[in-house]
């Protein structure tokens, strides 16, 4: 068979798609993030490294990693021997201070509905934001989520057909329990004495928030406060800016000592207020009266129906409070208008289903084609084209870094359907048992029909790009890529292939 340039284009595209998808046969877990100055980081382990072995135990999955790490650290320092795909590291540590993830099998990224995670859409309450204001909000929110310690997040402004402006937030993998308060609350923090504000959240007043230092930040064991209700307290230290510390001195100077406390405290409290709600009333010891206090201890509590739940609640509240103290308040009151948390376990089940379905569709279509044309090489040509189309579409999806969700995959499969239809059209048009003189005309007509249906397919999906905060963009995109690959690459190659087969 003579190779035409159209067939060569197809082959080149297939190779490029393979490079883009980049299948990966290594085993291990991927380091997704690493704490600054942790022993592992100082030893030279980096984000993106693949851990293959820890202390002689093979690490093939996240489960392996978790079980090995859980067995290793019991509070004391241990000797670690970590083998990555490139190197070996031996050091002492009492924890690994890193987050790891499943090694991706390919460059293909799957959407939230298949990989699990959380998605939220937020909108500013009662105001219409300009593009810059929206971008500001995106920046502050993303700083807040990063400060909180969330990695692997996508946060971007989206607007839709009716001019609505939203912020879309996607968090891959595990979802923090307090995501809702992190993104949905304005985080307006004030510390007041009487009606005077001493300091507010953000770096203007607060220069440092102690977070990972056990002597400066702690959650205490829970205590029973009433039947079936436990409370756990937390405390952490913050450093005030000179201005804020001076304000503290000026304000407390005039406050009299509370005689009922035996001279121990002042008669007014330092009230911590978050988004209009009182978090805690702290007594001010007499010694601080009129003092330029640069370090202040912030306290609060968590409650729960079990001691563990109370401690977890306290820890989460502390973490949220620390985050808003660092990042300050958001410029607008926000409203969460959509929030989804998708179970990774369920997503795995769905992914499995979709892969099996893809194979099933393939086999079924191949059988039909063979049953009709009864010629092995013609059928193979159809099957090869079908496969190429899906494969090149996937390649382009990985090139674009596109997250493939379930509707997106439906788009690819439906695209294959259109593709097969077009190939049947070409096969029928190229039948030689009818009058030979019409052959060229028929092929031309077939391409006219193919072009027409391409145009209508694109036209019908186009509006989805701007619909519904971009949530259905994936569906539109994969469908359009699929049919475009069809018309530009696979269809012309297929026409050449069948005419060569026919020539023989």
């Amino acid at each position, binding site marked *: 068979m003579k190779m035409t340039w159209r067939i060569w284009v197809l082959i080149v595209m297939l190779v490029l798609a393979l490079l883009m998808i980049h299948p990966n046969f290594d085993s291990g877990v991927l380091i997704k993030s690493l704490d600054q100055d942790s022993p592992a980081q100082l030893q030279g382990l980096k984000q993106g490294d693949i851990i293959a072995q820890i202390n002689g135990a093979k690490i093939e999955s996240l489960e392996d990693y978790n079980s090995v790490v859980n067995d290793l650290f019991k509070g004391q320092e241990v000797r670690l021997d970590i083998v990555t795909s490139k190197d070996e590291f031996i050091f002492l540590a009492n924890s690994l201070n890193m987050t790891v993830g499943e090694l991706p099998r390919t460059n293909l990224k799957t959407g939230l509905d298949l990989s699990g995670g959380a998605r939220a*859409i937020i909108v500013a309450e009662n105001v219409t934001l300009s593009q810059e204001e929206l971008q500001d909000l995106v920046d502050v929110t993303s700083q807040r989520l990063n400060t909180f310690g969330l990695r692997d997040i996508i946060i971007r402004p989206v607007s839709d057909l009716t001019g609505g402006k939203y912020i879309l937030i996607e968090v891959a993998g595990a979802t923090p329990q307090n995501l809702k308060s992190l993104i949905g609350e304005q985080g307006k923090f004030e510390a007041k004495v009487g009606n005077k504000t001493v300091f507010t959240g953000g770096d203007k007043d607060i220069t440092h928030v102690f977070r990972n230092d056990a002597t400066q930040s702690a959650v205490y064991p829970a205590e029973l406060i009433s039947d079936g209700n436990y409370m756990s307290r937390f405390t952490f230290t913050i450093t005030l800016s000179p201005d804020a510390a001076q304000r503290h001195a000026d304000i407390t100077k005039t406050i009299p000592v509370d005689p009922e406390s035996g001279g121990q405290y002042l008669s007014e409290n330092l009230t911590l207020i978050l988004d209009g709600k009182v978090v805690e009333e702290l007594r001010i010891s007499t010694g601080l009266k009129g003092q330029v206090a640069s370090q202040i201890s912030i306290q609060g509590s968590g409650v729960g129906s079990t001691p563990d739940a109370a401690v977890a609640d306290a820890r989460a509240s502390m973490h949220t409070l620390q985050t808003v103290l660092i990042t300050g308040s958001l410029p607008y009151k926000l409203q969460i208008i*959509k*929030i989804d948390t998708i179970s990774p*376990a*369920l997503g795995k089940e769905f992914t499995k289903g979709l892969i099996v379905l893809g194979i099933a569709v393939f086999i079924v279509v191949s059988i039909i084609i063979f049953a009709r044309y009864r010629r092995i090489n013609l059928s193979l040509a159809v099957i090869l084209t079908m496969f190429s189309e899906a494969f090149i579409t996937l390649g382009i999806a990985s090139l674009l870094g596109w997250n493939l969700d379930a509707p997106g995959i439906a788009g690819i499969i439906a695209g294959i359907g259109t593709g097969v239809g077009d190939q049947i059209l070409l096969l029928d048009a190229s039948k030689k048992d009818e009058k030979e003189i019409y052959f060229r005309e028929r092929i031309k007509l077939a391409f006219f*029909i193919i072009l027409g249906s391409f145009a209508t397919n694109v036209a019908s999906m*186009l509006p989805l790009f701007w619909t519904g905060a971009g949530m259905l963009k994936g569906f539109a995109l994969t469908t359009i890529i699929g049919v475009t690959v069809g018309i530009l690459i696979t269809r012309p190659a297929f026409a050449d292939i069948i005419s060569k087969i026919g020539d023989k």
Partner: protein
Amino acid sequence: MEQNQTHQEQISKFESFYNKRYKLLLLIPVILILLSLVYLVRFNSINGDFIYKDSSLAGGTTLTISNVTVSVEDLKTFLQKDFSDFSIREIRDLASARLIALVIDTTAQPDLIKEKVEEFLGFELDESNSSIEFTGSSLSESFYRQLMIAIVISFVLISLVVFFLFKKVIRSIAIVVAVLGNIILPLALVNILGIKLSAAGIAAFLMLIGYSVDTDILLTSRVLKRNEGRVNQRIFGAFKTGIFITCTALIALLPAFFIVTGLPDSFRQIFLILSFGLCADIINTWLLNAAILKWYEERKK
């Protein structure tokens, strides 16, 4: 040679039947479309809308719980005490009948329904065993409105493409009416079955617009642009190719319903609507569009 003869026989048999009856055949899609329209208008006056909307379009919560073994009936009775508007569906593995997931769709707030379901199940729901999707009513309303706008735009766009391809008004209208039928018939069917549509489901209708017009383009192009044979022969030739294409596409969709389970709901709904649409397409292309074309082309002469 023998093959040619049977082909000729087929054509002449088809011709004598089709010449006599094509206007009568035209009545089938026309009546179906009219009935569906009447049904949809009535449906709208009863339900206040043309479809049943799921929580992504009506606002509310979808709670998907994996790997549970509970009686759906008991859960229903339990939830009825506190919620007036909810539905429960099961996703089962076809081969083993294992319950893969339970899907609860309600207009209630996520925390409320989660708490009650937890009370019934006796364990806590977290991301290891469940997914929760919540859409606020303001977003869902705007979602729905936009999808409706998208359908209209999509329809106008393909009408323009069709008109550009075939230039003549009657031919283009025949195609546009057929495509309209391809939306109306499945829509009525979806409502009759009581299916709650999701955003992805409506997106499937958009796809259907582009997907189902293919056979109409095939038919009209063949009738107009092929110089061989009579109108009847061209219609029959187009039919043989077109029906095979549509059936292949339909069969390709089947595994999603009969072989593979554990597919996301959004996915299944897209496939379901596409299959309804392809069935409608067979009727609308070959009985409606073809008849109008034949009538028009033969009158012209």
